[in-house]
């Protein structure tokens, strides 16, 4: 099956029906392994046991940006190639991305209180992630406000691409400005600075949350295709009645 075959929503539904049970099972197993490794990880010499919040916070922070990246690619698919599933993919990803961003903010806040002495600080990293969260909510509101999916798709795609400017700002905010947030310790030039006792559980959790996103995204895309099918059929039914 080639990528062009997936442009057909019916073929896509058939593929997701086969893939989803396997993906869900694999995600659950990997999450359990990651949670076990997180529980067994040693305390940090400075942060103590609060370092365990990192195993939840960091994967969600990575995914908050990754999901917007996926939506930006989908926005290009909508505007440039007019791929029939591009808007479906973007619309289905937005609530999941918003949930990951909320978790990144909330767990970061819960980690910040014991380590920094405050739940919140208006510094560059925290503020730019809060803006990302608000942009997710704005996009979801836009899709809900415009009834015609094709009109909503174009407006949402433009807004998504404009919002993508925030991604490098989030990533490099800790280098460009003086922030309370620590600089990158995994995705950095020169390799990770984390000890393997922390790095391995972190990578397992990141992989588990990434698989969770793929699973939920495919399921949400399936729902969106069915919703559009329902809408088209209801319109067909209405026109048959009025004829």
């Amino acid at each position: 099956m080639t990528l062009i075959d997936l442009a057909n929503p019916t073929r896509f539904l058939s593929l997701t029906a086969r893939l989803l049970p396997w993906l869900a099972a694999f995600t659950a197993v990997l999450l359990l392994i990651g949670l076990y490794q997180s529980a067994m990880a040693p305390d940090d010499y400075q942060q103590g046991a609060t370092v365990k919040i990192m195993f939840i916070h960091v994967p969600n922070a990575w995914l908050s940006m990754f999901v917007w990246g996926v939506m930006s690619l989908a926005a290009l698919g909508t505007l440039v190639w007019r791929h029939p599933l591009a808007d479906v993919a973007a619309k289905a990803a937005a609530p999941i991305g918003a949930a990951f961003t909320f978790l990144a903010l909330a767990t970061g806040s819960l980690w910040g209180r014991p380590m920094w002495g405050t739940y919140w600080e208006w510094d560059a990293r925290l503020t730019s992630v809060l803006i990302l969260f608000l942009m997710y909510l704005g996009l979801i509101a836009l899709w809900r406000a415009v009834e015609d999916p094709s009109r909503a798709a174009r407006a949402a795609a433009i807004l998504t691409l404009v919002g993508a400017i925030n991604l490098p700002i989030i990533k490099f905010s800790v280098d460009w400005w003086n922030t309370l947030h620590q600089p990158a310790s995994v995705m950095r030039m020169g390799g990770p600075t984390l000890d393997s006792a922390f790095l391995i559980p972190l990578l397992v959790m990141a992989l588990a949350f990434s698989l969770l996103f793929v699973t939920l995204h495919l399921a949400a895309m399936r729902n969106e295709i069915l919703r559009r099918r329902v809408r088209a059929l209801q319109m067909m039914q209405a026109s048959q009645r009025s004829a």
Partner: protein
Amino acid sequence: MSLGPYASFILTSYALATVVVLILVAWIAIDYRRQKQRLHALDASGVIRRSGRSVADSR
């Protein structure tokens, strides 16, 4: 395994993540069921897709 003096912050983080993920899973599952019910209702009312397939056939 001792979580030290900040155990409440650690446990709240994990509990919050669990609740949010469960809400996402439940929302997607309920939405799927709702769309399938609507398709079945349309099928029962006699609407036919342009492909000629049953409207409830989601393949």
